[in-house]
């Protein structure tokens, strides 16, 4: 989140879209309701299905899965045409005034530079005209025909009410209602918050969904202010922390890039990844990347990393340029026999990755598999699942008992970037151990083997700075970072081994160690482990908006609202003094930690507010994504229509689509699969359901796999509530119990009726008789920026079942 959970109470309008917050983040909803009760905030819920979130919203707007960009594109058009944007903010804090290169173009669904052969763009034309110093030229009047603002208006001129209504299935009335209500937050003393979750990310246009909302929030001046922001409601119980530590193929801790084969040396890596800006008013914070990378390498290899050996850069694996090593590709390669062995920790891919039949089959090709889990599930026991003969499956299995969270101590990071400590209640039960301890032991055994017997390329393994045992707080300290030699900082002497006070002292010369620059400042000599803090004191200014600066610690540097320099004018005075985030008075900032301590812009010594962007401005025109600098509507990979009104390009031209004999797909408007399926979680079950199905009363509350459908569809198929049904896609079939409900309504899409149904995915065969993986239906296609699969839209058909074997009736 750019903001944080409690801040939601400060909003004037919550746009909840691609999320069912009341059911999947239940406890946070009190802050939405508080905004409503105490400030009269509006709540808008945009989601295909009516749910408990909708029941508490002022209005619910159902839209067809996968049409959010059309929906929001219409809002951008509305905002610009009706001049609802916050003019001063847009002119000064966004790149609206930047002049785009004349080589840039857009025609019929494609931007300039598309290469159809490898489905990617040469982005060199997505750039700005620059002056002699390489700084983008600007037209502050926003009149130049190629200024970003003009191009933005041009791009969304096609997103009129007729077209948007036709493709989304939302009435023009509902569209205008949402646009008018939300656009009202463009006033300087109003703030709107966008709350989204996997309803947005799980699409082949997922990142562009979020980009569209970022454009809207920038136009309305809602970034950096209390009650505003782009607020991802993160799912998993330390997914924020695990994302920050980048347990992801393409990045290293602190969001540094994975080294690639075309950057053979550390200098090449630094040069390719460190942005340069000659605008002295732009902080361009990522220019400090080399310091963070070297400090990380020192953390990994200790004294074995030095300037001469590029701090161990050579020992790191290099991905192919453009290589994708994510889940979808991993399981495809596994299916094709290219993966020999690996480990799975506290995750259940046999339930939660698309095309489960293929995933489960793929695992049979592994020679060995190590799993750390708290209980058996569909992944640990894939080798004797219904319908297979274990005597034909070679996979050697190692199953490690992982202890429960309450049996270990450590820190986790919540969705609002707060780093929180949890204490150890008891020793781990039985022989269970923490996953940290298990990882430490495995690596120590492997290191022992390499130390004894060399083997292939032993250097990175034997040179690792690795503990003998897992002691959480030792790692917490290393994550914050410490000095590798005696260092003086502003007159204070830090000895070798002492904690660094913040990331501003990290260096690229090997004198500092830091496992994650974002967390520097979280565990200091002065204040100890700040994740443990439970101090409720706030200044009056802070208390007004509920910042809690002394409860735990958040990254970066305990700044609770990101980009908060955009919440003030150039004199450092808040747009809305009733919800001050920061304020310049008596020659200093008060309130939250300012996003850069420089004095206000008017002093001549300030910096533009968007300090993580190279040019310091919020990006309306965003040249960094794979499929375009402006979001554009494309249909989901499996779609009930053959064309849409915005262009001839039906689908995302860069979408990642996996091809194999197990990955059959529906064609557009496929008569075999005319119904749109969306999938979602439940309140009583967690995701794939592995853990929660083991709690008797949670299972009693939600006992079996069901499919929700409209009364109209049920009548068509002669189905009544409680009937067992078969839902089928090009990839598999799933048994479920029908729920016929008003919560889903048919959509009128381009003049024809399109039905949408919804299914949870919490039920698996290891709990007998409750149903099995919904993901046997879903499609192996992903977003080109993240490769997150399109769980939220695929095409299916449904019929009454004569007999079912997966569900006890």
């Amino acid at each position, binding site marked *: 989140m750019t903001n944080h959970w409690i801040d939601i109470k400060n909003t004037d309008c919550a746009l909840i879209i691609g999320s069912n917050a009341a059911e999947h983040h239940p*406890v946070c909803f009190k802050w939405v309701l508080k905004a409503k009760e105490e400030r009269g905030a509006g709540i808008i819920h945009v989601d295909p299905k009516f749910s408990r979130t909708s029941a508490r919203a002022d209005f619910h707007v159902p839209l067809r899965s996968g049409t959010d960009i059309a929906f929001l594109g219409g809002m951008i058009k509305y905002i610009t045409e009706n001049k609802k944007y916050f003019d001063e903010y847009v002119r000064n804090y966004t790149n609206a005034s930047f002049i785009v290169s004349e080589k840039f173009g857009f025609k019929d669904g494609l931007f300039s530079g598309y290469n159809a052969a490898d489905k990617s763009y040469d982005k060199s034309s997505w750039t700005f005209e620059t002056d002699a110093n390489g700084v983008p030229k600007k037209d502050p009047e926003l009149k130049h025909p190629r200024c970003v603002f003009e191009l933005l208006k041009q791009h969304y001129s096609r997103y009129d009410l007729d077209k948007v209504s036709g493709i989304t299935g939302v009435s023009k009335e509902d569209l205008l209602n949402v646009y008018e209500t939300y656009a009202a937050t463009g006033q300087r003393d109003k703030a709107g918050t966008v709350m989204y979750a996997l309803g947005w990310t799980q699409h082949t246009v997922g990142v562009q969904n979020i980009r569209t909302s970022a454009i809207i929030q920038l136009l309305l001046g809602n970034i950096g202010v209390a009650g505003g922001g782009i607020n991802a409601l993160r799912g998993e119980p330390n997914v924020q922390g695990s994302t920050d530590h980048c347990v992801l193929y393409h990045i290293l801790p602190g969001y540094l890039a994975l080294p690639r084969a075309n950057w053979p040396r550390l200098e090449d890596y630094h040069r390719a990844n460190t942005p340069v800006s000659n605008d002295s008013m732009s902080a361009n914070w990522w220019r400090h990347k080399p310091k963070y990378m070297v400090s990380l390498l020192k953390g990994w290899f200790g004294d074995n990393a030095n300037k001469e050996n590029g701090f161990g850069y050579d020992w790191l694996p290099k991905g192919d340029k453009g290589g994708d090593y994510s889940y979808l590709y991993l399981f495809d390669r596994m299916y094709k026999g290219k993966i020999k062995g690996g480990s799975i920790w506290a995750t259940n891919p046999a339930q939660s990755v698309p095309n489960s039949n293929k995933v489960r089959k793929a695992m049979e090709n592994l020679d060995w598999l190590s799993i750390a889990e708290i209980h058996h599930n569909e992944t640990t026991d894939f080798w004797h699942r219904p319908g297979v003969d274990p005597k034909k499956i070679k996979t050697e299995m190692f199953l490690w*008992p992982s202890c429960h969270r309450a049996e270990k101590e450590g820190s986790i990071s919540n969705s609002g970037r707060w780093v929180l400590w949890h204490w150890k209640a008891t020793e781990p039960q039985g022989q269970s151990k923490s996953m940290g301890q298990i990882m430490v032991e495995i690596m120590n055994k492997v290191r022992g083997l390499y130390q004894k017997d060399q*083997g292939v390329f032993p250097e990175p393994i034997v040179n690792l700075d690795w503990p003998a045992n897992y002691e959480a707080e030792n*790692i917490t300290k290393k994550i914050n970072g410490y000095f590798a030699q005696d260092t003086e900082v502003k007159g204070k002497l830090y000895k070798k081994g002492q904690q660094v006070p913040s990331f501003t002292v990290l260096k690229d010369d090997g004198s500092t160690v830091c496992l994650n620059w974002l967390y520097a400042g979280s565990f200091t000599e002065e204040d100890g482990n700040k994740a443990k803090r439970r101090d409720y004191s706030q200044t009056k200014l802070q208390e007004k908006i509920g910042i809690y600066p002394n409860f735990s610690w958040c990254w970066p540097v305990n700044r609770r609202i990101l980009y908060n320099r955009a919440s003030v004018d150039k004199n450092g005075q808040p747009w809305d003094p009733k919800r001050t985030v920061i304020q310049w008075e008596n020659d200093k900032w008060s309130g939250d930690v300012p996003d850069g301590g420089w004095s206000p812009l008017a002093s001549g010594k300030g910096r533009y507010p968007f300090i993580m962007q190279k040019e310091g401005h919020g990006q309306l025109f965003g040249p960094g994504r794979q499929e375009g600098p402006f979001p554009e509507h494309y249909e989901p990979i499996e779609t009930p229509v053959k064309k849409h009104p915005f262009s001839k390009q039906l689908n995302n031209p860069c979408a990642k689509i996996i091809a194999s004999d197990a990955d059959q797909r529906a064609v557009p408007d496929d008569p075999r699969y005319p119904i749109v399926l969306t999938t979602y979680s439940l309140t009583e079950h967690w995701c794939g359901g592995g853990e929660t199905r083991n709690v008797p009363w949670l299972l009693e509350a939600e006992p079996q796999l069901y499919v929700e459908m409209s009364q109209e569809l049920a009548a068509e198929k002669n189905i009544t509530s409680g009937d067992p049904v078969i839902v089928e896609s090009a990839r598999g079939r799933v048994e479920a119990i029908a729920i016929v409900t008003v919560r889903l309504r048919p959509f009128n899409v381009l003049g024809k009726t399109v039905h949408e149904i919804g299914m949870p995915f919490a039920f698996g065969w290891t709990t007998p008789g409750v149903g099995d993986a919904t993901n046997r239906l879903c499609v192996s296609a992903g977003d080109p920026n993240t490769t997150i699969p399109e769980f939220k839209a695929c095409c299916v058909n449904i019929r009454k079942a004569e007999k079912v074997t997966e569900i006890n009736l």
Partner: protein
Amino acid sequence: MKLTRRTFIKFTGLGAASAALVQLGFDLSPAETYAAELKIRGAKEVISICPFCAVTCHFIAHVKNGKVINTEGDPGYPVSEGALCAKGAAMSAMINSDHRLLKPFYRAPYSDRWEEKSWNWMMDRLASRIKETRDKQFITEKNGQKVNRVDAMFHLGSSQMDNEECALVHQANRALGIVHFDHQARI
């Protein structure tokens, strides 16, 4: 005295509930009799965090004789103010579930069952498989460029891990040369 939630928490804190209530002016005798029968009497209170969504509600674990006998919401966490959803409310059931794996298990190739094996034996066996696979499948160079990686091995998970565990897992996997490295954030 004016009783705000903050005052209440300040006085009751952890484990000092009854003394504080007397200070606040309550007559405890009937309550004391009732409390003598409460299962959490005399228990140690430890704060942990729900392992489900990223609201990260805190809970208080009541511990007696080395066992968690009760869990409930922690009012000291400003985001939840003591609330828990159905999953968080079931925490003690999950901690003490019969379904929990409490021993390591091994499955031999082509076997139809899990076997109990010693932790040490399994560790040695797994480490040797890791080394054997890595040594055999390691790719030093590809298309004339140094890659120093092993595509044939992978790691998945986990957003269930603490920050400290994630940091170590990342370090270890890159040292092994693994690029098929992913977890729930991408799902």
